[in-house]
């Protein structure tokens, strides 16, 4: 056992410490000085502080990073974890800015605190390969998210959704913990690489099968993959817009990265295969099945939705299905593709929720009929929405298209010489053709349907407008020049050797 070097531990955790400290400062400032101001001012100052904290953490990661691995992966610091942490922090910054113009709560300090604490949880998630730390930070993240969903105290539905989310989340945590405990029992270790070394064997231990299935179920809840998606539509629909945006973007990035790591590292050697017609038992067929169900269910049910948030929830399930394909093949290249996909997806979803937030504030709710004729009420808003929606649909030259293309290429490329996984790719592409239908229906309302009579022009707050334009520009830019992000991801993945 190596001697514990507290100084190094502290140094590695600096970014997280910065975020936590910011969270506490925001909370204190809000209680001590800000409470006499209006909600808007409080939100602006609190979010401003939060943004500064996140920016500080990013700067710390960028300029004072080192490569380290303490205690067999309890705390890891390498370019890949930095990349994921920066992505999470950037998404948090956008969420904070987005919340400035909202008025759903008086408890500004607590809201920002919870957002930042959840971010801390995600940062730890990205930077560890140890089951215990994974579980603790996952709980830190989840508990914050449950409260964030329930933050609109005036809405009974918000409570209901939060309770649902909490119950399902608690159950998934139980599954996960059960799976983890079995893994520990099998391997006598909590470190993913050590576990893999211990459980590796020609035949699958029945206990290991249970561990695989329960872990997959636990993570399935987190990423809202079918058939463990029941919380998603409700949460997406009634959570305050910034919370929903956060759940749909930042937490997706962290969860998918973690899921990939746990499966590819922790269960290495027990993959099995999803190549038809000779499936081999292991975790790969389990995930392939989950991906298939998610793609089918998400896309088909999304067609019937009349609320944009619910539609995005089902499309999120579908996208989770596509992204699971990257975990199914778990090559280095597919990790590149997964990260590119999840980051661009998060940007587009965040943007879509920003648009929804603006529209909801003026029109009451997010029914699709409220988007009728949006392009005549606010051309900028509707143009940005079109960019986000088309990116989700995978239309070039937006980021979503390249993400899909690259993902499908890596899936096929994982089994060179055989077209064994072609069926998954064919299904995914066919389903994205289905998805175009419901995405186009949204845009049809925005651009084609005339607005209801007597509706005034929509006033977009300046800050929201700036965020929207920045996000739309990012989606467009990453689509036209994917190499900007891809180069970075590739270098990080190569160095980390995952």
């Amino acid at each position: 056992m190596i001697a514990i070097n507290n100084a190094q531990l502290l140094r590695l955790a600096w970014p997280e410490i910065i975020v936590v400290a910011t969270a506490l400062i925001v909370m204190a400032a809000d209680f001590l000085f800000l409470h006499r101001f209006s909600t808007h001012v409080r939100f602006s100052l609190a979010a401003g502080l939060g943004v500064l904290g996140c920016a500080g953490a990013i700067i710390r990661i960028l300029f004072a990073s080192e490569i380290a691995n303490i205690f067999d992966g309890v705390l890891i610091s390498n370019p890949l974890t930095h990349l994921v942490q920066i992505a999470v922090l950037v998404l948090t910054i956008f969420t904070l800015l987005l919340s400035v113009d909202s008025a759903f709560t008086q408890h500004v300090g607590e809201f920002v605190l919870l957002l930042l604490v959840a971010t801390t949880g995600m940062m730890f998630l990205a930077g560890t390969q140890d089951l215990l730390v994974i579980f603790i930070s996952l709980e830190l993240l989840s508990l914050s998210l449950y409260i964030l969903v329930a933050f609109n105290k005036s809405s009974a539905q918000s409570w209901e959704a939060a309770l649902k989310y909490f119950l399902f989340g608690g159950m998934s945590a139980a599954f996960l913990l059960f799976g983890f405990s079995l893994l520990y029992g099998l391997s006598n270790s909590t470190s993913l690489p050590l576990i893999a070394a211990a459980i590796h064997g020609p035949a699958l231990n029945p206990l290991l099968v249970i561990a695989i299935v329960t872990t997959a179920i636990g993570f399935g809840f987190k990423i809202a993959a079918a058939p463990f998606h029941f919380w998603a539509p409700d949460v997406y629909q009634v959570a305050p817009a910034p919370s929903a945006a956060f759940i749909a973007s930042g937490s997706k990035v962290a969860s998918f990265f973690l899921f990939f790591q746990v499966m590819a590292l922790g269960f290495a050697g027990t993959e099995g295969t999803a190549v038809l017609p000779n499936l081999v038992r292991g975790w790969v067929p389990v995930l392939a099945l989950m991906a298939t169900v998610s793609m089918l269910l998400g896309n088909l049910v999304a067609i019937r939705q009349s609320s944009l948030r619910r539609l995005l929830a089902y499309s999120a399930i579908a996208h989770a299905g596509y992204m699971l394909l990257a975990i199914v093949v778990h090559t280095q290249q597919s990790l590149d593709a997964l990260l590119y996909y999840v980051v661009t997806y998060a940007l587009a979803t965040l943007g879509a929720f920003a648009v929804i937030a603006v529209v909801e504030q003026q029109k009451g709710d997010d029914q699709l009929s409220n988007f009728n004729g949006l392009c005549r009420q606010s051309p900028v808003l509707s143009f940005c929405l079109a960019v986000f929606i088309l990116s989700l649909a995978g239309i070039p030259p937006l980021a979503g298209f390249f993400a899909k293309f690259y993902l499908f290429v890596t899936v096929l490329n994982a089994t060179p010489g055989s077209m064994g996984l072609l069926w998954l790719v064919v299904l995914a592409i066919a389903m994205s053709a289905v998805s175009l239908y419901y995405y186009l229906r949204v845009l049809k309302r925005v651009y084609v349907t005339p607005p209801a009579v007597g509706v005034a022009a929509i006033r977009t707050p300046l800050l929201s407008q700036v965020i929207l334009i920045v996000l739309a520009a990012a989606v467009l830019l990453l689509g036209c020049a994917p190499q900007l992000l891809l180069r970075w991801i590739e270098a990080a993945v190569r160095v980390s050797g995952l």
Partner: protein
Amino acid sequence: MLAWTIYISFLGAAGLLLLPKGSVSSARIFALLTAVIGFGITLIYFLQHRTGEMLTITRVPWVPTLGIEFHLAADGISLTLALLTGIIAITGILFSWNIEERTKEFFAFYLLLIGAVYGVFLSYDLFLLFVFYEIVIIPKYFLIAIWGSTRREYGAMKLALYSFVGSAMVLIGLIAAFVVAGAKTTSLSQLAQFPFSPHFQMGAFPLVFIGFAILAGMWPFHTWAPTGHVAAPTAASMLLAGVVMKLGAYGCLRVAMVLFPLGLGPWGFHVLALGSWRDVFALLAVIGIIYGALVALVQKDFKFVIGYSSVSHMGFILLGLMTLNQIGISGAVLQMFSHGSLAGLLFAVVGRMVYARTLTRDLAALNAMNLHKIIPFAAVTFVIAGMASMGLPGFSGFVAELMILIGVWRAYPLLALCVGLGLIVGVVYVWRAMQKAFFISSGIESAPPNPPLPPITMPERIGAVILIATSVLVGLYPQMLLNIVVPALNSPLFDGLRKGSWQ
């Protein structure tokens, strides 16, 4: 420089959106100017291009990780179709001079579509080609759904979904080919040289070919075409029939047949006397020719007649490709050009000159109006366009269809007879539509429209003259196009096709 056809169209689209609110006429002129510049650039290159070389326009790495390049290049075939795009773009704008509602947006979507079409024709990298090919879908949808007529939202959605399903099939084929070839390059010429196994080609060829052929209106995947054409506003139908359907045919030739030439070879067994994918698609093309013509014969709606005639004419192009001999394929390229200009003209007459004035496309109602007295220019234009479309000598359609027929005669003598039947029906439906729409039948009470129709405007006249002139020019001197198309077909790119199953 040629790449600027693409950039300038996109910039024009963006520029239009920046114009001040309510600037209708400046938007039109701006759009027209953009289209004219695009056409001018293409024309210069067209006139300079003689040798049959592959002219590289731009080539820079785009996504080095996957070997994707931003590679634009032009040979005779691309230049011919780019020229067609320029002509249709200009005349389409001339024929949409009457768009008053959301004019800026209309022309912005229009130019976006034009830019993407130029992009497809000039791309030499498969990924790039596919990107442009998919960009086409969205403006097409909005052009129809916002400014269209009969059942526009249905027609637009159907069109968008058909296109997207087609491109999904193409995408699967392309990704598979890319991966099988080692995932190192998406360059068309390098992938074309890769020796894909015959087994793989047999599977990939029909997938990609059908994917593109959906957009080319191949029977039985043609059903988007008539509804889409009818729902679309005039300029959009002109673009749809004029160039967008050619994208499909171009993709069949340039991607499916070039990448997977062995997919055209015999299966080694026969099903219903069909021994290869080539036989299957040739048969489908002939069915398309006859079916389209017969259905056009019984339509009550004037625009549906033209819509189905497009299906019929596109059948000629696909059949020409399947002859796999030089005369047949060059005839097919010529037919792409010829049908592009003629279908554009026919849709212009029906949509702009007649429907925008009478507000009906019902042939019986039009018959009673005795239109040749009221808008003689439209009647004359339609007669000329109809003659060209029937394939009378002196027009482009004659040369193109003759070449295809000769090609078919060499490859499938029996099918050539069926095609002859299709040609005869073609004469009949044009004749019928012409008579019903413009010349009153005896024994019918003349019911002149009330209030009187506005006269044909100058932009319409100019547009019609341009399209007729194009057709006549190519009809009288087809060498103008063939001089660059035939060398392009003999270029190294088509080596696989020539060595494989060329006859």
